[in-house]
């Protein structure tokens, strides 16, 4: 059964355990994103002088970089940490009868908290720097919801298979590294060769990140058609992952 209070408790513990025993405690949850934003905005934007072609805005590249990196970090961490969630919580699984797919939710929630804090700080920067806000910003939660659903689907597939093939966690880590550099996150799409530009429309991470950029950087409509197709693909992946999990659930519990 889905135990909501248990998931919330696991989320709380996952978040507080990271800073357990430290003097500053949960303040570190704000320091980490603040330092990341400092790197993206000051180091890449100001000191290294990163510029975005076609825009005259001083912080355009910093904004471009940050709206790519913050969602990617939440997305990749959600997938990578989900991969070993059944193995990491095997003591809990053997003691309490609970729905295993629901265990992935606490990781997604924990990464969401980090993302919300980072985005909150980023919005403060945008506000101070006088960056124009688009009314399309109301799409932001839906974009994030879609990306985390996609991460959930991939994560559930990976978590189920990792119980049988332990090497999968390392393989997923490598795959995420390749995926990161294959997606225009730190660079612009224009520098890619023609054949890669054509392939890029099949990259789900690119669809999501280019949607964030349409809203934040280019003040334009996100690719709605691609987002609808991605929504359908995401739910198909979740469905396949759940069917696979259901067919292997007994073996998963036995092996754990």
């Amino acid at each position, binding site marked *: 059964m889905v135990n909501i209070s248990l998931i919330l408790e696991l989320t709380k513990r996952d978040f507080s355990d990271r800073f357990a025993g430290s003097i500053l405690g949960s303040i570190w949850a704000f320091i980490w994103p603040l330092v990341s934003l400092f790197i993206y905005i000051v180091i890449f934007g100001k000191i290294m002088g990163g510029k975005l072609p076609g825009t005259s805005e001083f912080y355009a590249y910093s904004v471009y970089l940050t709206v790519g990196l913050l969602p990617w970090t939440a997305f990749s961490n959600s997938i990578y940490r989900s991969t070993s969630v059944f193995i990491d919580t095997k003591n809990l699984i053997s003691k309490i009868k609970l729905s295993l797919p629901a265990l992935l939710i606490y990781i997604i929630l924990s990464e969401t908290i980090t993302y919300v804090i980072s985005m909150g700080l980023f919005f403060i920067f945008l506000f101070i720097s006088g960056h124009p806000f688009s*009314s*399309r910003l*109301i*799409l932001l939660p*839906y974009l994030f*919801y*879609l990306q985390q*659903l996609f991460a959930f689907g991939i994560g559930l597939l990976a978590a189920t298979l990792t119980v049988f093939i332990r090497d999968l966690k390392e393989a997923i880590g490598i795959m995420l590294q390749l995926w990161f550099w294959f997606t225009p996150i730190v660079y612009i799409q224009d520098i890619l060769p023609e054949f890669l530009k054509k392939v890029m429309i099949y990259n789900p991470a690119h669809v999501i990140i280019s949607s964030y950029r349409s809203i934040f950087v280019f003040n334009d*409509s996100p690719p*709605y*058609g691609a*987002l*609808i197709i991605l*929504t*359908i693909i*995401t*739910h198909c992946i*979740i*469905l396949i992952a*759940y069917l696979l999990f*259901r067919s292997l659930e007994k073996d998963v519990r036995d092996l754990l």
Partner: protein
Amino acid sequence: MIAMLVIVLWTVLFVITGYVSWKKIVSHIKVYLLIFYNAIYLAGVFLIFSFLKA
């Protein structure tokens, strides 16, 4: 403003439908149903936006 209102109504409709289905159905079909509802809901949100904000 209109887009916002339509999205809120769309969300309320799916939250109620999802909640009632989840509570009333006991078997595993409710999970598949929830995935289906969620796909319709999210695709609908992007579709509403594309029509109202284009």
